Each structure stands twice: as C-alpha cells, then as structure tokens.
C-alpha cells in the first residue's frame, strides 16, 4: 500500500512535508536543472516588500563554523514586479506557493498582502516578522518597529490580526529565535489567527576580521543559518509544538532526511530546507526521498505516525 506523506497547513494540503525556505531558493527557476520541482511539498518565496529593495551593500555573506551569516537586506523587486515577473513561473509549477511577505509597519504588511491577494496562483503567506538584517544603528521608527516584531508578542499579535483581516488564505507567522520564550510568541500568533508558525529564522550574529578590525559584513551583523543552529531550532520547535494547537513548520540546518525527521519527531508538521540548497541544490529532493525510505524501513504509512512522536 502507498505511503501518504500529505500534511495540512491551514487551508493548504501539502502532498509532502518538505518545503524550501524563504530566501534560499532564488525564484525556484534556478533549481529546475537539478530536480523536478513538482516533487516539492511547497515553495516559500524570497520575502517580498511593498516597494522594490536594492538590498545591502557587499559583503553580504561570510562563512562560519558549520554555518554562514547573511545580510542580503531583502533584495527583491517589490510586490508589483514580483507578481508580473516571478509569479507566473511559480504558478506553472503546480506546487503550493507560499509568498513570504513583510512590511516596515503594520499598514505596509496589510498592503503587501492585499496586493498579493489580488493576484492568483498564491496559496498562502508567510509573514516575515523576524528579518535580522535591519541595520542596528537605524533610528527610523518603522525600522525599529520591524526589529521588534518577532521579539514582542504584542506586536506579533497586532501584525497577524491586521493581516488576518485582509486575507482568507493560509497565514503563517515566521518567528525569530532571539527570544527567551518562543512558545509565548507562537501563542500570540495563534491567538491572532495565524494558521501556522514557522520556526526558526536566523540568529543575529557577527564576524570580525581581526586584520582590518572591521565586521566582515557591510551590514555589520547578519543572520546565522546552517547546521550549527539545528540543535537550538529543534529545541524551539519541540517546546513550541507542545504549547500551540496550530501546526509548526520547522527549519534550521536541515541537510538531510535524518535532520528533517528530527524536526518532525520533535513536533513539526512540515519542514523547510534552507542553507542546504546552496551546497546541494538537490537537498530538498533528497530529504523527501530519505523520509520515504525511513517510512518504508519503519513500516509507516502516514505522517501522523512521525509528527510529534518524540518519546521521553
């Protein structure tokens, strides 16, 4: 009998629990040479903002032990041109498309999603409440607001409920890791009507070049991702999944199926593959194959038998 890998995230039924993480999969087209994109459970796009953004000056990335820092600065064509230039290709793939959206204020969040809602071919939204690459030095109120979003349960509640008013599509709140109490933030999103939460975004981090005595990144700080953060991400997914009723999308350093299974067993309903796409463009496809192999080996027929199956 066949394996059923499907999972439900809000209104979206994913045929399998393996998605690709925002900002790590280009506009998907970059990967078409490597595997059949139809295989994916879903695609989360690079974060889209209301206006086009040039992004941060270089250097934007630096390698760290078992990880990397990035300060891309949300380079994106803006919501209008995203709909014109990028969405058509994504639509054609026949894979659930979750657009990562963000605004520099509650209003902007609403506008971005409203604009996207008019286009078709979008299945849901992941609200990026946790972009770490807003300049620390920034004084403008809107920016410092953004910096707060994921670190402040009231802001999370405000943004999510505001966006909830303007769309019926599946709404996912993406939370940041730089907090003491992730479940508290997730509960705020749940209360405000989010259909799911994504954990985790990158950690704010820094590398200094001792020769020049300057931060390596032009933005000074960047977001830490990759295998190095996985044990923290698994812990956060584990403690959050115990507290919220809505599904958790887990991510953070997933390089292969075993890592994805760690998240699923800890309580994630689906996983997102991020940094691994850079070293191995086939990573997400291989993660999926590996989960199927695991189910066969352990004679499992549905994801229910894996999700939150952690023993203690």
């Amino acid at each position, binding site marked *: 009998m066949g394996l059923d890998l499907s999972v439900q995230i809000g209104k979206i039924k994913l045929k399998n629990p393996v998605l690709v993480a925002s900002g790590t999969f280009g506009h998907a087209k*970059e990967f078409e040479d490597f595997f059949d994109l139809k295989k994916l459970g879903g695609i989360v796009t690079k974060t889209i903002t209301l206006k086009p953004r040039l*992004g*941060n000056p*270089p*250097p934007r990335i630096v390698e760290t032990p*078992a990880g990397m820092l990035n300060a891309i600065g949300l380079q994106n064509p803006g919501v209008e041109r995203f709909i014109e230039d990028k969405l058509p290709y994504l639509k054609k793939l026949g894979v659930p498309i979750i657009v990562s959206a963000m605004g520099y204020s509650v209003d902007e969040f609403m506008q971005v999603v409203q604009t996207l809602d008019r286009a078709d071919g979008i299945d849901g939204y992941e609200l990026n409440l946790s972009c770490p690459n807003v300049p620390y030095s920034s004084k403008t109120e809107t920016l410092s607001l953004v910096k707060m979003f994921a670190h402040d349960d009231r802001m999370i509640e405000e943004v999510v409920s505001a966006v909830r008013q303007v769309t019926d599509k599946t709404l996912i709140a993406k939370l940041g890791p730089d907090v003491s109490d992730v479940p508290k933030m997730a509960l705020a999103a749940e209360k405000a009507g989010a259909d799911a939460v994504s954990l985790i975004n990158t950690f704010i981090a820094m590398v200094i070049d001792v020769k020049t005595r300057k931060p390596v990144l032009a933005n000074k700080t960047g977001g830490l991702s990759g295998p190095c953060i996985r044990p923290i991400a698994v812990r956060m997914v584990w403690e959050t999944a115990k507290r919220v009723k809505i599904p958790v999308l887990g991510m953070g350093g997933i390089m292969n199926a075993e890592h994805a299974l760690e998240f699923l067993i800890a309580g994630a309903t689906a996983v997102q593959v991020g940094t691994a796409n850079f070293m191995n463009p086939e990573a997400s496809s291989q993660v999926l194959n590996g989960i199927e192999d695991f189910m066969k080996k352990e004679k499992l027929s549905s994801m229910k038998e894996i999700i939150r199956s952690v023993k203690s």
Partner: protein
Amino acid sequence: MFKETCEVLENKTVAPDHFLLKLSSKKIGKAALPGQFVQILCSGDSLDPLLPRPFSFLEASPTSFSLLYHVVGQGTELMAKFKKGDKVHVLGPLGKGFTLRRKTEDGRGKRLLVGGGVGIPPLYHLAKDLVRTKEVKKSDIHVFLGARNKSLLLCEKDFLKLGVQLHLATDDGSKGHKGYVTQVLVKFLKSSIFHLPSSLIHSCGPTPMLKAVSLVASEFGAPNEVSVEVPMACGFGACLGCALKVKGETPGSHRFAIACTEGPVFEGSKILWD
C-alpha cells in the same frame, strides 16, 4: 548547470602554492565556456568548511575539465590533498562567460587579454577558444600577464604554444616589464594603431587591476569586460549573497548585480568601483 561527482585525474603543483586540478566529467566539461566557473565542495561530506568554493575553468573537454588554483585557505588546502581517484562534488558550468563572437566591421578588431594571478586561467581558456574558432587571427590576440615574479606568470608556456602575442610584467622585473601589467597595456595602446571600437579588452585578476584596466580602456575608448571575484555562497543565483555594485537604469543610480548569474563577467563600464 549540472551537479556531478567527478573523479580526480590529476592534481599537481604548477607554481609555488599553485595546483592544476584535472577532473573527469561527462556533462560539465562539455558545456563549459571561457569565463564560466564551477563550485567545488572542498571538504566532501564534512561540514567544515560548509560552503563550496568557486573556480574558473582553465581548460574543458567533453570528458574532463581542469582548474588552476592558488592555496590561500582552508578549502584550497583541502583541495591540495586531493589524490588521483578521489571523488569530488562539483556544480557547473556556472555564470556568464566572456564575449566570444561579436560583429565588427570586417573583423579589424584585436582582442586584448589582461590577466594577473589566478585571473590568468580563464583567459587561457578564452584565448584557446578564440584560436580554435578562428574568431580572430592569432596575430590579433594579445595577452598581457602580470605577477609578483616570473615563477607566478601562470600558463606562460601554454600561451606561447597557442602562438598568441605575449606581453609580460613582473613586480620584481624577474621577467618582462618591471612593474604593473597595466603599464604595458597602456604602452601598447599608445604605440600600436588599430581600430579600438571593434576591439575588446578582457581582463581577470585582482580587483585593483580590473579597476585600472577598465579605466585605461575607457580612456582609450576601447570596449572592455572584466571577470570579478566576489565572495559567493551558492554560485547559481539562489542566495543573492554575491552582490556587485553596478550602474542602475537611471543616471547616477546604482543597483546590486548578482555576480554569479549576471556575471562573473561584466562590462567594465557598468561597474561602480569604490
């Protein structure tokens, strides 16, 4: 773009701290164009270093390709340990290479290839292709090489074998002009008479050299393209980490080009050097 597991055919020293790595390949070698590059996972399945490392093609054939690399850090140190028969994970060919064919009035133009350090290998690949395709006469291909000393004038003999015109410069004067290769270039542009607009200057090497070359080129009104070296994560447009500051649509504006897909070869005049 292909993901291939290539076998090491050869990995030998060709200059102090410089190695030539030849890899077997069914797909990448066949598709490789001069100026394009590959991403190599130096540490195999280990996570340290995590990211792949980009290297230009030196040569490419339907069954193999080779790179010439300088050992500068952790990744290249691991590569120096590669032994015949080892398997290496490679991604390629990546990026947009050098301009090969171009319409010029009755092909009066010359091609000037200006290279320094590990910027030389892709220029050899280019010269070889220009000769093979008879795009321009050998006598119209002028190669300008610069290095700290003569032992670092990479590929010198190979260029000679090709029969192209060679112009050398070393910082210590151990061979050719004592000083910068750009000085040799300027002297050449001043002394020789040929149709600059239908010519093309290709350069690859340290950023200061690229900057100097494209300034010289614009002074003389010669079209020029440079292959830039910027830190990269993915190498194929997935991370947007390889930003390069270039001129924007509107005058005075700028934007950040994605060097791994829009480049690594750019029109020199488009780049905003800082």
